[in-house]
């Protein structure tokens, strides 16, 4: 084989090999996605065509000689041959022109395609594929799915380990922090309007005798309402907290959310309406589907277990 061809082939192979390594290394790779395949096919065609066309012309520089009839005119010493068009080029120009007309007018009628139509088909196919699968996802697999949602959607605010990045968002490894409990007791809250339309009233701190008592109650809630803390439980009743959140903070439908730990229902409520609290504002996540919400909620519930 000639040195030039060899160099060309090596160039093409190196380019494509490196791309393949990079793409293949990413989760998914070509992923059976027709768009991915066409893009790679385009990249392959680009390298191969260029390399071989260039080789063709370099050969002519090496082996051929210039010839033809010179035109009469000449500009600053530059002449012009009256050579015919290179046949391959002329043929392809004509060919692409005809193809373009055909494509635009009849071959693939311009109006027969709609990108939104294509999107609808793709989405439907995606939904069909995964809805069938969703029914069987539960338990550990559900948590695993939830983790994947968390990493794609939530980690920018809550951090990779869901620790809230130095207090910039809620630390999801614990149900709640001291500041947040104090905040709702003093200021009340009404974020999760869908599931708890009444909200929590403000000023419940006045139910308590003094700062010390209030602190005890808060510690009790932050600790997840431990069964052996009788004093805390009493204070919880004293503040009428149990009337909305249930005796041990298990939560009550429409009245108050579960506050002793995260469960699917609580997290879903937050995702539905978002939440503004002591730390900051958490956006609502309406674009997640029901299964994704269930999964990410299960994942968060699993963190504090």
């Amino acid at each position, binding site marked *: 084989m000639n040195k030039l061809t060899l160099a060309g082939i090596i160039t093409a192979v190196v380019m494509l090999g490196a791309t393949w390594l990079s793409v293949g290394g990413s989760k998914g790779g070509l992923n059976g996605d027709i768009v991915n395949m066409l893009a790679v096919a385009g990249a392959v065609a680009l390298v191969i065509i260029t390399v071989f066309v260039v080789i063709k012309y370099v050969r002519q520089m090496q082996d051929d000689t210039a010839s033809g009839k010179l035109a009469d005119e000449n500009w600053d010493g530059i002449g012009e041959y009256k050579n015919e068009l290179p046949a391959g080029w002329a043929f392809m120009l004509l060919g692409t022109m005809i193809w373009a007309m055909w494509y635009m007018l009849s071959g693939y009628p311009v109006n027969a395609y709609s990108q939104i139509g294509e*999107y609808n088909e793709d989405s439907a196919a995606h939904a069909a594929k995964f809805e069938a699968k969703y029914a069987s996802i539960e338990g550990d697999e559900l948590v695993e799915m939830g983790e994947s949602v968390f990493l794609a*959607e939530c980690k*920018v605010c809550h951090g990779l380990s869901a620790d809230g990045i130095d207090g*910039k968002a809620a630390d999801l490894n614990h149900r709640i922090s001291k500041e947040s409990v104090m905040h709702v007791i003093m200021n009340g809250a009404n974020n999760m309007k869908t599931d708890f339309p009444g909200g929590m009233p403000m000023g419940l701190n006045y139910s308590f005798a003094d700062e010390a008592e209030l602190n005890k109650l808060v510690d009790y809630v932050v600790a997840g309402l431990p069964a052996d803390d009788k004093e805390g439980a009493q204070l919880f009743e004293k503040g009428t907290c149990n009337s909305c959140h249930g005796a041990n903070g298990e939560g009550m439908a429409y009245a108050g959310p579960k506050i002793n730990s995260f469960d699917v229902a609580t997290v879903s409520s937050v995702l539905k309406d978002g939440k503004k609290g002591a730390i900051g504002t958490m956006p609502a*996540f309406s*674009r997640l589907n029901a299964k994704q919400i269930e999964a990410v909620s299960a994942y968060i519930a699993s963190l504090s277990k």
Partner: protein
Amino acid sequence: MFHWLEKHPFFFAVGVFVTIAFAGLIEIVPNFAQASQPVIGTKPYTTLELAGRHVYIKNSCNACHSQLVRPFKAETDRYGDYSLSGEYAFDRPFLWGSKRTGPDLLRVGNYRTTDWHENHMKDPASVVPGSIMPAYTWLYTNEADIDTAYAEQVTVKNVFSVPYNTPLPMKDGSKETVALADTLEGAQASALEEAKLVVADMKSKDIQDAVAAGKIPEIVALIAYMNSLK
């Protein structure tokens, strides 16, 4: 014929011009009127939002961020609904961008919040480890140019009939009106009111003090703008 043209530069130039000019007519003109109709739910920018948009442009955020959600499943999953032409009816200039070094921001108001932006714009890597976005610290001290934003509002209202002070249909069936003050002082006052709502969700004492003193730092305007992107 061509050889003749080459000897007659004037006609040559006319020939070139005609050849290159009519493609533009055919490609651009037919869609012009239709694309400018707003879809339901689209509102013109308030003074503060528009000042924020100017901050966005001044810092060329569009160099890294697009504002165009293409109709692909993966994009609507990541950013929300795909773009509709009428959503951009009040965007002068359009800010679709052509490079996504950072994520699309067309609907960022849906899934990021004031306090997050406050942290992020000051030091992106502190909330998103590995981020290559520059830190925009000067936005916290420079003041937003409310006057120019107001001048632009007045201009688009008068010249392009952008519907300020007009009830506009929203997606939920209600109507909303974006008010435009009659005077510059009025506009400054209403921008300040709007700024107060934004800083209520911010943590920085300096920013809160600045707004309390009647100043509007660029970051406040920028966040108002980003929150409006939905």
